[in-house]
């Protein structure tokens, strides 16, 4: 299964009641797969007239307490921002998959990580947050879908699954576990993995709150109102404080990240999604060359693993952020490092993919002379300590 189909099936397994979508490359396999599977399951599939309509259909289904999702790619996600802001104001759960492509504008259809800011900063108008996953392989994409629906329901928030054109299109063997398994066993198809630090493993089988706020018809009860308009003086401020308190809870409980050989490392590479797969190969090669390098891979991009990175920055290390953009997550890494260590960047924008050799070259450049047992050939340190 390609990533797009696998995530769609994972959503079906996670109990999605309704899927609403509009065609856009490179996520069209999701729409096509859902049109067939949702019909087989007797659930709802609508091909909408626009992404605006899609996100508002999600809004409608969610307001009645149903599990609803949509998917799109960058330009379509931009159109959905209005709806995501309203969903956030009305505290409705929703799952939005963004299979990112190159931008800005129509850009191209190649894989990119250019929507990090949009996803992690809310994206639409107002003070709000969305939970954002940045899975790095098809297995992790599959594993984060049930978790996305659970978190959406638990916190009454929009959860964004931030994939990209490679993840959507590539094929990897996956285990589609019909029993919910929110522990994310191995993000990669095989091979070395780091330690996944999170609060999720401690909470198998989340207890989700009842949806007593849902619009189901006011039968033998008072009316329910789902709204985001608060005109009375102080009412909107109160809502915003309530939202912030909820976001603090999410930050406390839901950070997911992978750490690999950070303890003895002199260089820590921070990357997410497909860029992290490239980094992983580069780090493993660099280790074979004797370079003390590790990686930190945020799995949730919001909440961001600030604590994990900050802890790593307590000992002197060089941080290298690698992205398929010109540096967006870089800002979060810098905020986490808080000036305690140098933070460098390597990335390629516009749908271009950094190669393992390019990242490895960058790691070699950062090697501190004399610190590794083995001297690296031709390594010219950029940072003098």
């Amino acid at each position, binding site marked *: 299964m390609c990533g797009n189909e696998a995530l769609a099936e994972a959503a079906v397994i996670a109990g999605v009641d309704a899927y609403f979508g509009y065609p856009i490359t490179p996520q069209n396999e999701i729409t096509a797969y859902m049109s067939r599977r949702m019909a087989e399951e007797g659930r709802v599939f609508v091909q909408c007239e626009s992404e605006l*309509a899609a996100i*508002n259909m999600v809004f409608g*289904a969610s307001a009645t307490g*149903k599990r609803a999702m949509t998917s799109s790619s960058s330009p379509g996600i931009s159109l959905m921002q209005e*709806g995501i802001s309203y969903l956030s104001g009305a505290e409705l759960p929703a799952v939005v998959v963004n299979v990112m492509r190159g931008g800005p504008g129509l850009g191209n259809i190649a894989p990119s990580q250019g929507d990090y800011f949009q996803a992690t900063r809310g994206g639409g108008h107002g003070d709000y947050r969305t939970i954002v996953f940045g899975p790095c392989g098809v297995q992790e994409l599959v594993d984060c879908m049930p978790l996305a629906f659970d978190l959406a329901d638990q916190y009454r928030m929009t959860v964004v699954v931030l994939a990209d054109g490679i993840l959507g299109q590539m094929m990897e063997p996956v285990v589609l576990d019909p029993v919910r398994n929110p522990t994310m066993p191995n993000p990669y198809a095989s091979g070395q993995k780091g330690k996944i630090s999170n609060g999720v493993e401690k909470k198998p089988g989340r207890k989700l709150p009842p949806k007593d706020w849902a619009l189901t018809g006011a039968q033998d009860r008072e*009316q329910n109102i789902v709204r985001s308009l608060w005109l009375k003086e102080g009412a909107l401020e109160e809502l915003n404080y309530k939202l912030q308190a909820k976001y603090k809870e999410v930050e406390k409980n839901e950070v997911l990240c992978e750490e690999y050989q950070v303890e003895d490392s002199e260089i820590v590479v921070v990357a997410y999604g497909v860029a992290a797969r490239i980094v992983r190969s580069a780090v493993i090669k660099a280790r074979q060359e004797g370079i003390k390098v590790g990686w930190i891979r945020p799995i949730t991009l919001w909440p961001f693993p600030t604590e994990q990175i900050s802890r790593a920055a307590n000992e002197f290390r060089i941080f290298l952020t690698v992205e398929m953009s010109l540096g967006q997550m870089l800002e979060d890494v810098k905020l986490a490092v808080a000036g305690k260590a140098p933070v460098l960047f390597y990335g390629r924008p516009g749908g271009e993919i950094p190669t393992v050799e390019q990242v490895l070259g960058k790691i070699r450049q950062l090697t501190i002379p004399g610190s590794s047992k083995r001297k690296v050939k031709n390594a010219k340190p950029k940072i003098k300590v």
Partner: protein
Amino acid sequence: MKTVFTRTPTLKDCPTHYCPGCGHGIVHRLIAETIDELGIRGRTIGIAPVGCAVLAYDYLDVDMVEVAHGRPPAVATGMKRTNPDKIIFSYQGDGDLAAIGTAEIIHAAHRGEQIAVIFINNAVFGMTGGQMAPTTVLGQVTATTQQGRKAVGEGYPLQVCELLAVLPGAIYIERCSVYNPAQIRKAKKAVKHAFELQLDGAQGLSLVEVLSPCPTYWRMTPAKAMEWIEKEMTKAFPLGCFKG
């Protein structure tokens, strides 16, 4: 003393925020009466628009949601598809339905969504201060057509019923008004019919357009506004059933 007329239970007993002579209150009542007469309060979900009627849930005692400008038909689609047993209605103004939400209403009708749309046409944007709406009639003075609306550059009044009636997915399209008691009774019949079609599981969208007064932004007395609907507005928007 014998009670001959009373508030219908689904219409809440509270002060109104609408201007004197506004038509929203009348149409709210027609919807509330319909819900009570059909006994569907426990299975009805309403959608409030952006505009003066954004607070419709303060008056209509049913489950309601308030959504982004122009998007009620999409929200209604999401609700009805996942809850085919519920009665879904949207309440939309002319800015909401005929300007920013044209794609949503056309495609909801085009897909034949089983929803009831109550469309209030008062020929202006009321909430934002009386600007030109797509339904503003030619020559009408508004905040943004201070010399009167001209066809060249500003377009002709948009006839939503005529536009939607040609779509196979639209099964019932009627234009009514509330300018006198007889018209109010006709409008009530139309609103009720739209709800009944949905109750019967009829395959398609129903829309009832109501020509409704906005004395504040028409700069008229309430009585004069009613007269203006009858004499002027109905020329651009002829009353009648266009389909079904």
